[in-house]
Each structure stands twice: as C-alpha cells, then as structure tokens.
C-alpha cells in the first residue's frame, strides 16, 4: 500500500484466549472494539428450499444393534462411536457455533449415543436424549468441553423453533 500509494487503513485486532471461554471476540464486539467490521465470509451456511425449510438427512448415526465396544487403539472403532458427536459438531457449526472436535486438543475423546431421537424425520419430538462420555486428562478443558456440548444441545433445542422459550431446554447426560 505504501509503495503503490494506495489509500486505506489496516487494523489488526489482537484477540486473546481463542482456545478457552469466555469468547474474547464477543467481549470485544460488545465493547465496541470491532464496530464497523464485517467478516468477508458472512453468508448463510445452509440454503433454504422453496418452501423455506431445510432438511438434514442422516443426521443420526447408524449404529448396529447390540453393544459396540471401544478399543483405544482402533481408530475405526473410535470414529464410529464418535459419529453422534460429529453430527452434533456439525449442528453447532450450522448454528454459528464451534465444533468441539475441531478446536480441542488431540487427547480428547467424545463418544455418544442418541437413545431417544424421535420417531420420524418430519416430526418434532417432545424430547430427545443424548448420552455422552467426554474424556480429557485436564479438568479445565474437560469443563470447557462439557459446556460447549451443553451449549450445542441448547442450540439443537432452539432449532425446533419452540412456541415458548421454556420449551427450548436441553441437558446432556455425561459420565
């Protein structure tokens, strides 16, 4: 810009603590530090069809009936068991949130099942249940991860467009 004599400005936003909560960028935004900024990728992530509805197919993982055991040395086994979490991570991204799988250290393990997920793709269930094991050898990240998953569950509840805010409740069972 200097050499070509191009007018303009450069602003560098130094944003702390990207890896942990609370989100520093949100604090900066609310504090006015990012006022006037616009993200170049700010566009809808999910298109809508002519009826204004969006359908997500095969969101639920297709587990075999019966027990599935995780062997720590088996990547394939781990991936299969993590499908619900991947789906939830994708749901978090669709909601504008963050995928836990993409932002946490490699030592984490999240395995889950959806024991109660509804009866049909076009029927909003009264309630759904997910059951997760969240493992990480550091209590700070473990708490952080559990909170992110809980937020994703609340977002998933919100996606059903409840008639009253009181219906948009969610909780995660962890062990």
């Amino acid at each position: 810009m200097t050499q070509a004599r191009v007018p303009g400005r450069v602003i560098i936003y130094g944003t702390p603590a990207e890896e942990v909560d609370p989100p520093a960028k949100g604090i900066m935004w609310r504090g006015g530090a990012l006022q006037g900024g616009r993200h170049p990728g700010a566009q809808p992530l999910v298109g809508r069809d002519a009826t204004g509805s969006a359908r997500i197919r095969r969101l639920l993982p297709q587990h075999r009936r019966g027990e599935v055991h995780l062997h720590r040395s088996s990547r394939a086994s781990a991936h299969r068991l993590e499908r619900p979490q991947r789906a939830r991570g994708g749901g978090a991204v669709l909601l504008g949130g963050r995928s836990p799988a993409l932002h946490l250290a490699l030592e984490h393990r999240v395995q889950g099942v959806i024991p109660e997920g509804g009866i049909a793709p076009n029927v909003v269930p009264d309630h759904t249940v997910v059951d997760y094991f969240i493992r990480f050898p550091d209590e700070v990240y473990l708490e952080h991860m559990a909170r992110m998953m809980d937020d994703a569950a609340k977002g998933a509840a919100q996606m059903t467009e409840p008639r009253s805010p009181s219906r948009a409740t969610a909780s995660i069972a962890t062990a």
Partner: protein
Amino acid sequence: MQGVSDWIGQHPEVGWHEFQAVDTLTKLLKGYGFQIDTGVAGMPTAFVARWTSPAGASGPTLGLIAEYDALRGTQGDFHGDQHNAQSRWHSPQRARSWNT
C-alpha cells in the same frame, strides 16, 4: 517474521495470560508505525493496532484477527493450533505491502 513466530512458539502462554506474546507483537507493530491500544474491552491481553496509508485513509479498511494463545497440554503448554504462526502472518510488512 519467522523469528517472531518461533519465539512465540517457544514461549507458549495459555488464554488470558499471553502477556509476552502481546508485548512482542505490539512492539513490532509500533516499530512499523501502528498506533496501539492495549487492554481493549477490559481485557489485559487484547489490543487493537491501527495503521493508515501515507496516501490517506480514504480507501478500504482491512481488518485482521490475530490470535496468540497456546493450548494446555498434558506435558506442558504448546502451540498446537498454529497461533504463533498466525499472528506473524499478519505482519506489518505483509499488511503494508498489499496494494489492492
């Protein structure tokens, strides 16, 4: 700029404690004519650095996000998410060399 990346990478600081990284980056940016505001939004390790082209401020404004915190690891803190490299990517030479 590789030296800055290496230095931050060798001195990992976890979120809310990135004092050395902020000190290093803001000193560097000051040296290239950026005006620095630190402690932005009440956060000690947040800053905003502004630079205006010698040709004037009437053109577009390019905003860049810099991140510099490390991950907590079971064997010590580390830069596993390349934040040490990301901030130096927003180096003042590079920013000032853009001519579009």
